[in-house]
């Protein structure tokens, strides 16, 4: 029997409200299939299942609000038949052999939990799995560990779970006040970032004359529907440059840095009503520029229309914030935990540029890097920005 639990869709999610089931008992589900729509403080999300099976029972009801980690449904594994007792068993105390299905990649286990619901409550008399540091911190903060859902191995409560539970705003936002709820979730994640991550910042002005000339020429030969934006080229350059700087791409969890194998580029997208969401373009470095542009356009459209998938929200290994051509000169962002770096781009604008003793006017962008000092330092960060600058001088190379 597979327990399908409400996944955490990012560091700033504690709970969600089931809006709709997309499956019913008896339905077969494939890996990656969207099986439910869940509303979070930020957006309605299509939640995918990452195991195949057959829906046995839907436990959560539409309209029900639940903490991350709550068992929402029971699925039969392929070949499994309905166990007699399963129909009557309490969902929350599923057998110990039950496999936990976290939606999204395995990578999102860490971001999680910290809910206060019953789900994996320990058997009576069983000692709660909790790290000593987490137990100490829980005592300091007055957090009741027995009520927490652990996001660590075998449901162990981590330091992160404890701090998250402590940081959670006590009174929930008034129903309907989405704006306030979003500001609170952003505030909680960013407060945690500023509290836990020793940020350092470096910046570099990058001349873009070559890149923009190339883009103009390329776009003039393309139909409107296939036109490229400078943002797509910048994203591609970031993904490429990261190949030589693995210490900027990954997650810091349980006291250690875990580099990621691929670059899943989180892109901060502002919502028209205020607030922002940073879903990821998966494996951005491996995608040709045209494809990256299509995915970026699709991601912006779906973010604003409220139809993101859970994998897109939990996968990011680094985030890029691009103020765009209506923005300011430069931006120094706050890292999204548990990521370890954030790249910022200001407005591309014509500026005075000194070269070989002469002065000329060139389009320039200020690129910045905010990174985690526990993992890297300013020297490497600066080298990364220089490489980014070099790559942007060879736009033909980035097109591939």
């Amino acid at each position, binding site marked *: 029997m597979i327990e399908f639990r409400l996944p955490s869709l990012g560091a700033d999610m504690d709970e969600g409200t089931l809006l709709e089931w997309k499956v019913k008992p008896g339905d077969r589900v494939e890996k990656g299939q969207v099986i439910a729509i869940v509303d979070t403080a930020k957006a309605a999300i299509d939640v995918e299942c990452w195991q195949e099976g057959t829906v046995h029972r839907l436990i959560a009801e539409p309209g029900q609000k639940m903490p991350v980690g709550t068992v929402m449904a029971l699925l039969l594994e392929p070949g499994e038949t309905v166990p007699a007792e399963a129909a009557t068993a309490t969902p929350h105390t599923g057998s110990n052999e039950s496999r936990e299905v976290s939606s999204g990649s395995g990578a999102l286990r860490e971001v999680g939990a910290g809910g206060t619901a019953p789900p994996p409550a320990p058997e009576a008399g069983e000692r709660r799995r909790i790290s000593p540091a987490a137990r100490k911190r829980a005592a300091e903060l007055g957090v009741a560990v027995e009520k927490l859902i652990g996001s660590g191995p075998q449901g162990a409560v981590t330091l992160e779970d404890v701090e998250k539970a402590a940081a959670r705003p006590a009174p929930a936002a008034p129903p309907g006040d989405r704006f306030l709820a979003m500001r609170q979730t952003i505030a909680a994640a960013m407060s945690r970032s500023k509290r836990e991550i020793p940020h350092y910042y470096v910046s570099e002005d990058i001349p873009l004359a070559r890149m923009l000339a190339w883009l103009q020429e390329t*776009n*003039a030969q393309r139909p409107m529907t296939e036109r490229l934006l400078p943002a797509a080229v910048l994203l591609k350059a970031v993904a490429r440059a990261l190949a030589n700087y693995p210490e900027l791409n990954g997650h810091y969890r349980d006291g250690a840095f875990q580099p990621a194998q691929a670059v899943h580029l989180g892109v901060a997208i*502002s919502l028209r009503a205020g607030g922002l969401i940073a879903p990821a373009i998966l494996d951005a470095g491996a995608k040709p520029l045209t494809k990256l542009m299509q995915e970026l*356009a699709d991601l912006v459209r779906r973010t604003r229309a409220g139809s993101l998938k859970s994998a897109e929200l939990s996968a990011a290994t680094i985030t890029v914030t691009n103020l765009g*051509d*209506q923005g300011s000169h430069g931006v120094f962002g706050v890292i999204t935990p548990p990521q370890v770096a954030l790249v910022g781009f200001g407005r591309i604008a014509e500026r005075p540029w000194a070269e070989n003793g002469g002065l000329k006017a060139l389009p320039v962008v200020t690129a910045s890097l905010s990174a985690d000092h526990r993992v890297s330092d300013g020297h490497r960060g600066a080298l990364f920005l220089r490489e980014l600058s070099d790559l942007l001088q060879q736009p033909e190379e980035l097109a591939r």
Partner: protein
Amino acid sequence: MNPSELRQRVITTLQGIAPEVDAARLRDDLPLRRQVDLDSMDWLNFLLGLNKALGIEIPEKDYARLTTLSALLDYLQHKLTERSAS
């Protein structure tokens, strides 16, 4: 297409990208993108929407002069007239 029909089409297309836009409060003579807060992706989508609604191709080199709503309307009107004349 007469000017008021064109204006209506353009505003409907704009509202497809930015649903909060109040047509009555939109100023024809101020920079459109700043009034409506259109980023480069919104702008591209807006022009793609116009391309679909009116069948007009808008080359990137023309973007620079499409700053205000009235400049955009003049430009589109001109393109439509050009097309019906050919």
